[in-house]
């Protein structure tokens, strides 16, 4: 299936991929430091396992970024 991740086209070969699996495939080391947006909607971390992807989905990983003062 064809999806878009962070603005880039991606081909997934697995038939069923949920958001937890996608984070694994994309080698996101600390899922706690990423907010996920699916087709413009925020997805709660507890719903990753039940959120299955379909062709045409647009996923953004938004990284928590602090820094600044110290």
């Amino acid at each position, binding site marked *: 299936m064809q999806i878009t991740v*962070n*603005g880039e086209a991606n081909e997934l070969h697995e038939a069923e991929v949920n958001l937890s699996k996608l984070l694994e495939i994309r080698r996101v080391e*600390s899922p*706690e*430091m990423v*907010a996920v*947006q699916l087709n*413009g*909607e*925020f997805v*709660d971390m507890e719903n990753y396992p039940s959120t299955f992807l379909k062709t045409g989905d647009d996923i*953004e990983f*938004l*990284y*928590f*970024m*602090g*820094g*600044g*003062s*110290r």
Partner: protein
Amino acid sequence: MIDFTEEQLERYSRHILLDDVGVDGQEKLLQAKVLIVGAGGLGSPAALYLAAAGVGTIGIIDSDSVEISNLQRQIAHFTKDIGVFKVDSAAEKMQAINPDITVRTYKEYLCAANITKIIAGYDFIIDGTDNFPTKFLVNDACIFTGIPFSHGGILRFNGQTMTVVPGESACYRCSFREAPPPDAVPSCAQAGVLGAIAGMLGTIQATEALKYITGVGELLTNGLLTFDARTLTFRKINLARQKSCPVCGEEPSITHLVDAEQSVCELKSEPVAAPC
């Protein structure tokens, strides 16, 4: 209408020459009040540029003192300033650049108990803090008081920023919901940061403040600008207000300000002023 002095006309001539700014825009800048939260990597360049631009009143809040490891990126502070309060060091440079402006310094740690009082009266806020609890606190307080702000973050070779106009555009919580667990958070102190990206990000934040005050162009609202300095790739990710947002959504669960647990960033050294 302000009567500009000859010196002011010359000092601000490159602004006044801009059709979209002009004398009117410069007058708005001189009458504006901007608060900078954090006098560090992001706050330093923002403070210097806003001072240079003639933003009439600039508040700057930070409870820390300058350390030698700050000097690689926090350009308002010089080697001679080690041990000096960051806000005093920054204020000295701001006034040296532009004695025309008023600088208000706050040697305090921003928290739920003092934030509403401190931000009251400011037109725009620049978030240059190093920790997530304070970033969320700034977001929530701005949503409650209706003051627009610029979020900014840097880590390693990356930066991100977005501008929030309460009631109109997506807020920080629309996308990021709540502070990540403290043990998952790498700080600049642990992960490192390429010094110059603090300047890249802080000057974008200063630009947003100047645009908001003068009404020039379109703000970075409903979008998160991210960059990776290694490839110098910039992306603007579209964001939208979320009905499910816990602070600005349809059924908010956050209705008052609370202090969250501090991140590991804060454990490195004790704040100079007692936390609330």
